[in-house]
């Protein structure tokens, strides 16, 4: 059956795997924009490229879970704005404008994004790098009305968290508008990756967002493997999944505790902190690094499971299954805690769908989307697990999705160690050329990597964090909630600043 993606008019590019890349004209580009606006496809990513000629790329997924990458050349440094038709693209286009100097024609918002006016250059990734403009103060959106006041927060926040600026407009205690200003941790990772060796770029990808280092490692490795058409050995795929599920466990334990802590229920925080620490220690004992950084490499994994690994993981599973159900009971039976989380920070299903929100943010608002299932990747096609989906869309639903995912991850780890067979853990990566694309499910949602290899070096690499489509929903979720519930809402999203700012 032909689907939306099959009907897009464009020229298919050779050597792009596993999904097609089509060079399209402006009309097909606009057509894709209206399909997005009408909800027949989901925007996965939108970014610029300043290779041989300037172009923009857009990754979309249709209702049949088919994926395509559309590329539009922009010789006159302008392209038709997708954001004008489909608001989730607005920030992505603002970033393209700031980083590449490509103009989205007809864009509804032309303020800079990521560029806060502190760099020595303008359009650092563009074909023409120019000296910086005279910095002008960032124009926050105007708010009108009686008795409104503004609360500026950040970039340095009160806790041990990443930097970003939040501008609240409140009427009394009620938030009327939240506007985010991000980019403080922008490190220029894409410019460092361009021209780097495959190994150097792997280390950079592993440091895009430290909490998702395994997921980024897998996504980058899969993109390289797709570009060069190599397949990692089965044992490596199992070990990657093992690491990915350990990472998911550790982060979900941390998040569940931290959300409760932001509702001033520190008992859950203390106990979840113990489970998180036990998970990280098990990860260290299995793979010699607590966060398992640099353990996934293109071609396989760098570190085999330690000799005692299966025992370590079996003990971890026992410990979690002993302690976690009691914590779930504690969460569920504490009325004062439920009073804070139920009905707070609601994201409507419609909004989650439109923004293509992935991870627990999407799944708590009725979006049945997990890239481990669809489009799916090895070894999850051989494993038995379910994807929990709720529809309430509040803080409580985001907690429950995490709780259910912890249970699924524990079951997955058990299957993985049961089915783990001996064998090689990596294949050699030969220098070659090609284009690769990968989608991998991190604990937070789908991580997208798109890259082009040229003679064993990375010509360009684009990493897209799931937070890009979650941050805007946080602005919507907090509306009409009280200021004091913001930390709670924010923690229930736990968006990445580093992954977003890159």
């Amino acid at each position: 059956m032909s689907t939306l993606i099959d009907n897009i008019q464009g020229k298919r590019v050779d050597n792009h795997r596993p999904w097609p890349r089509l060079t399209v004209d402006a009309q097909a580009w606009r057509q894709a924009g209206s399909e997005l606006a009408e909800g027949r496809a989901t925007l996965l990513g939108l970014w610029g490229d300043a290779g041989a000629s300037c172009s923009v790329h857009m990754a979309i997924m249709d209702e049949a879970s088919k994926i395509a990458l559309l590329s539009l050349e922009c010789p006159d440094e302008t392209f038709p704005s997708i954001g004008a038709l489909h608001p989730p693209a607005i920030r992505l286009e603002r970033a393209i404008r700031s980083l590449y100097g490509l103009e989205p024609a007809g864009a509804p918002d032309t303020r800079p994004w990521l560029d806060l006016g502190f760099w020595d250059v303008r359009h650092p990734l563009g074909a023409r790098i120019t000296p910086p403009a005279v910095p002008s103060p960032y124009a926050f959106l105007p708010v009108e009305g009686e008795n409104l006041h503004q609360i500026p927060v950040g970039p340095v926040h009160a806790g041990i968290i990443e930097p970003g600026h939040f501008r609240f407009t409140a009427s009394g205690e009620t938030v009327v508008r939240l506007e985010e200003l991000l980019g403080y941790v922008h490190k220029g990772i894409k410019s460092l990756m361009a021209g780097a060796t495959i190994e150097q770029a792997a280390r950079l990808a592993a440091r895009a967002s430290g909490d998702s280092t395994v997921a980024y490692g897998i996504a980058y490795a899969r993109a390289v493997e797709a570009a060069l058409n190599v397949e990692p050995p089965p044992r490596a795929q199992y070990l990657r999944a093992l690491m990915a599920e350990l990472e998911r466990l550790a982060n979900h334990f941390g998040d569940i505790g931290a959300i409760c802590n932001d509702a001033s229920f520190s008992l859950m925080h203390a106990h979840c902190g113990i489970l998180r620490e036990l998970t990280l220690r098990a990860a260290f004992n299995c793979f010699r690094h607590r966060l398992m950084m640099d353990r996934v490499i293109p071609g396989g994994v760098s570190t085999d499971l330690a000799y005692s690994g299966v025992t370590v993981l079996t003990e971890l599973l026992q410990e979690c299954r002993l302690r976690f159900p009691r914590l779930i009971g504690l969460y569920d039976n504490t009325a004062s805690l439920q009073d804070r989380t139920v009905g707070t920070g609601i994201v409507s299903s419609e909004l989650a769908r439109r923004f293509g929100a992935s991870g627990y943010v999407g799944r708590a608002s009725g979006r049945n989307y997990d890239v481990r299932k669809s489009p799916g990747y090895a070894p999850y096609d051989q494993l038995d697990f379910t994807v929990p989906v709720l529809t309430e869309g509040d803080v409580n639903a985001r907690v429950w999705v995490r709780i259910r995912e912890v249970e699924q991850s524990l079951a997955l780890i058990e299957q993985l160690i049961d089915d783990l067979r001996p064998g090689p853990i990596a294949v050699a990566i030969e220098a070659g050329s090609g284009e690769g694309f990968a989608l991998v499910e991190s604990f937070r949602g789908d991580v997208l990597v798109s890259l082009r290899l040229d003679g064993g070096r990375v010509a360009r690499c684009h990493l897209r964090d799931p937070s890009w489509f979650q941050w805007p929903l946080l602005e919507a979720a907090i509306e009409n909630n009280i200021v004091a519930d913001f930390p709670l809402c924010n923690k229930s999203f736990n968006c990445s600043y580093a992954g977003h700012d890159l």
Partner: protein
Amino acid sequence: MRRTIFEGLMRRPLTEAPPVPDDAMLAELAGSVDRSARRLLGRSLSIREVDAGSCNGCELEIHALNNAFYDLERFGLRFVASPRHADVLLVTGPVTKNMREALERTYRATPDPKWVVAVGDCGFDGGIFAGSYAVTGGVSQVVPVDLHIHGCPPSPTELLKGLIALLERASAKV
């Protein structure tokens, strides 16, 4: 809930014995902690954490210092919400250009005497991010640093070693 609290009270604590600081860390600190400060602060330091561009890996391990296994507060060290309350700035990341001004202002807002501890390999000299148009290349490029804790990210034990070294220097009798 009562059962969970009761068991928590009766069970042996999970907290581990404190690590011994490295000689290298003590040597780096030797010159930076003076006598008057020691008298002033005794054995207690307040820490303000500043993320100046980290990948958030360091933040995860700094967070872990508060869990039951490492229990930072038993050493008299605690994290505070404002630089105005802090004695120590614990800075992570290569210091992005977008965060330089915020870090400088945080440093100026911290009352004297104060110390700066740079955490992580990228906090030392920019590490893997050095050379980018968007980073300055390490915490010491922006504010004076008293101690570097290496690692990517440093484990909670390494962080604890560094902070205990700082504490011992800050409170040692002369």
